[in-house]
């Protein structure tokens, strides 16, 4: 856990530095719908863009606006102030309007060496899957052109297998935190997750295994309530730590920097076409409110997690101006209230320390209500 605490808070961790020193390239991506297996198969390091609670957005504000979500403004700030200069390329996906605007401004201003736009359908029907299969092939071709060599199906299968192993380990960590006696906090899990998406897959496997081993000798106690945290893109380890300091142990989540980001094993099925396997695996398990026909799946994912982790209450959070989660959280809250599950819905600014007093009061009041 010490390694996680030392490495997670920085954008350019030791793995990134070593990777660059060996002359290899790094490609940034923002959205969980990006099949990173293709990037890895191309010999590149996929790096999930994050802002790590950075609250300074003054350069980004000259390009985006105050009506754009502060997480995206924060990421853009880091893109424009040079903090992300270690990235050699960027993959855009149509995750949400703010993300699209963030990447458009980033690319317009900085012109990265490599840029590709992977279009992800908003539906999960068969016509959309077919379209996505072709999209993944085009995306693979773009990576091939960038690295100057072809990528074989076998290499993609290998990466699919590797991601399966990583997902298995993350699932093990979720089982540990969701169990009766959790031995890893929500803040540690988020930090671990962030680290694992900013290092080579091999290292991620080892790091996750070490974290699992560390959990064996630990026990957590003194918490008032077990919580589920759901909602917007939240990579704010400090925010989760604050909830936990107040007595609410975050034993599970439905975050896209968390439970929504690891998929079921894809090698289990028949080995036919790796592109179809990826298209199905990513699109069918994309539990993001951007999928306009997927409310029932998202609700059932949430209810399953609530039951599995035996939570006392649910905290649904969204960044100000996030339409997708802002509206989805209302639908989810209404559904949870119908089931008599205690729920707290919070709108907040990303990384805004000034807001911390209000958030503490609301969380304390919620914990008193359910604790």
């Amino acid at each position, binding site marked *: 856990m010490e390694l996680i605490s030392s490495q997670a808070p920085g954008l350019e961790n030791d793995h990134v530095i070593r990777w660059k020193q060996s002359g290899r390239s790094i490609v940034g991506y923002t959205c969980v719908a990006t099949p990173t297996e293709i990037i890895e198969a191309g010999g590149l390091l996929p790096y999930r863009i994050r802002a790590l609670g950075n609250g300074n957005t003054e350069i980004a504000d000259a390009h985006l606006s105050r009506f*754009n979500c502060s997480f995206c403004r924060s990421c853009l700030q880091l893109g424009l102030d040079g903090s992300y200069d270690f990235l050699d390329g960027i993959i855009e996906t149509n995750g949400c309007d703010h993300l699209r605007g963030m990447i458009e401004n980033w690319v317009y*201003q900085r012109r990265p060496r490599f840029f590709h736009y992977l279009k992800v359908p908003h539906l999960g029907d068969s016509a959309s899957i077919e379209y996505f299969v072709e999209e993944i092939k085009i995306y693979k071709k773009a990576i091939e052109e960038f690295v100057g060599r072809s990528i074989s199906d076998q290499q993609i299968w290998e990466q699919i297998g590797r991601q399966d192993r990583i997902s298995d380990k993350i699932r093990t960590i979720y089982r540990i935190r969701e169990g009766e006696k959790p031995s890893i906090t929500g803040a540690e899990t988020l930090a671990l997750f962030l680290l694992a998406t900013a290092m080579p897959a091999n290292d991620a496997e080892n790091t996750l295994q070490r974290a699992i081993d560390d959990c064996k000798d630990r026990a957590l106690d003194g918490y008032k309530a077990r919580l589920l945290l759901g909602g917007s893109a939240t990579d704010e380890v400090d925010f989760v730590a604050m909830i936990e300091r107040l007595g609410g142990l975050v034993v599970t989540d439905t975050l896209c920097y968390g439970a929504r980001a690891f998929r079921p094993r894809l090698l289990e099925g028949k080995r036919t076409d790796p592109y179809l396997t990826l298209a199905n695996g990513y699109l069918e398990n994309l539990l993001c409110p951007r999928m306009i026909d997927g*409310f029932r799946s998202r609700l059932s994912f949430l209810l399953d997690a609530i039951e599995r982790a035996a939570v006392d209450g649910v905290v649904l959070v969204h960044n100000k101006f996030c339409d997708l989660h*802002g509206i989805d959280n209302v639908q989810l809250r209404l559904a949870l209230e119908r089931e008599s599950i205690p729920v707290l819905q919070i709108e907040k600014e990303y990384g805004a320390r000034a807001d911390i007093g209000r958030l503490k009061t609301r969380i304390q009041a919620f914990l008193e209500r359910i604790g």
Partner: protein
Amino acid sequence: MHRISVLLGLVDIFPESMVGPVGSLLTYSRLLPADIQAGFQGLFVPRAGKASALFIKMIARWILQAKRASRNGKKVILVPFNFPVELIHAFDTAVPLTSEVLSTVGVIALRGQGERYWDMAMALGLPDHICSANAVELGSMLGSEDFQPQAIISSAAGGCDANAKLHEFVANYLEIPLVILPKPPDDSGRGRAQYGIYMRNLVSRLEDLLGEKLKEDRLRAVMEKANRCTELYHDLMDLRKAVPCPVPNIFSLFTYATRLSAWGTEDAITTLRSMVEVSKERLAKKAYPAEKEIARCIWVYTSYYYDLAGYFNWMEERGYSHLGDALMFCFPQLIDTSSMASMLEGYSDAAWGMPMTRQMGAESMSRAWIEDIVWAARELKADCAIFCGHHSCKQTWSVVSILRRELLKQMGIPLLVLQGDSWIKRMTPMSTIQQEIDEFIKNVVASKSAPRRKLKKGRRKQLDKPIAS
């Protein structure tokens, strides 16, 4: 919204020759509350001539159709503004109700201007940064029995998250079917082909919901009328090119409200024809509301609708022509009506080119938007551009800085960025908006007599290089 249907019921009963005089009388009699009076003054501005009465009768009939739908054995299909209504008009058993048009009518004609309905939507706990055009309509569904849809079409996925999510929310909340037409943000040709697949799926889904097959003859009749609308639309666009602009500012709203509600109907043809005739007469007389045309303004996204007089009338009376906004730039094309397949293909093209879908649903939001605005500014000889900054339009807000830069680089015209809600006056009062427009035009936009703005070499060089952080 019950109050609206009563009002529109009266409009429907009165003959066209009476609607104009009665409207004008009401406008200037001070019988109406101030907020409604501002709407009426905009609608019945004398220079709009007979077009006002025809437009209002068209809207009245369109809304009353929805109100009386169940009585007539029809289903109300709620659609967003970026879904072309002519497909719904082609079904015997369905009537379209466009959320944004209904909300705009409420904002213009209701005392309190729809804010009561906004508050009802907010009471559910919805965030205050969602689109008021949709929230007012949602509130009206919650607070009135008049307009209860039996299904909702969402064509916003890919073009606007706020709209798409609210459509999903309304469908879940009212427990009605949601029919989705997503826009792949793909300009390669694959995206358009995929959109065609989604469109065919949508037609099948509608047929199932309505229990009615789309008939070729009926579709052809609607599409032929839509083609006539297209011709008249382009006539109006041509008239807007004249200097000074002979097309009254309020016709921007009339044009796209017609596109978004009644396109493909006889009412739409009549209304558009009257707008063309009025504009031609004004062109012949060289009529213009002010002493001279000082500025020709392109509005790059939406306009403001909560004070029509304070916005459209005020601008042209000061010599500021409203050449249209992005809702008008839907670039309709004539549809080949020779077969069912050609009509559906042409219709898919029309849907692909609808406002917002066309710009914000494109592969690059900024590039598509810039292309359209630069084209329109060039064609219509605009000397300035204004972004109304409707706070819910996060996609436009996220790339407006690129648009501003490119407009200056490619056209040498400045862009004013305002902040306000297009439908709700609480955010920015009209007086503030007027003041900002005034200052911008007086201080930034070159006068007509001055030479066209040219960029100095140094500035051009600065704009051409990427901004260093």
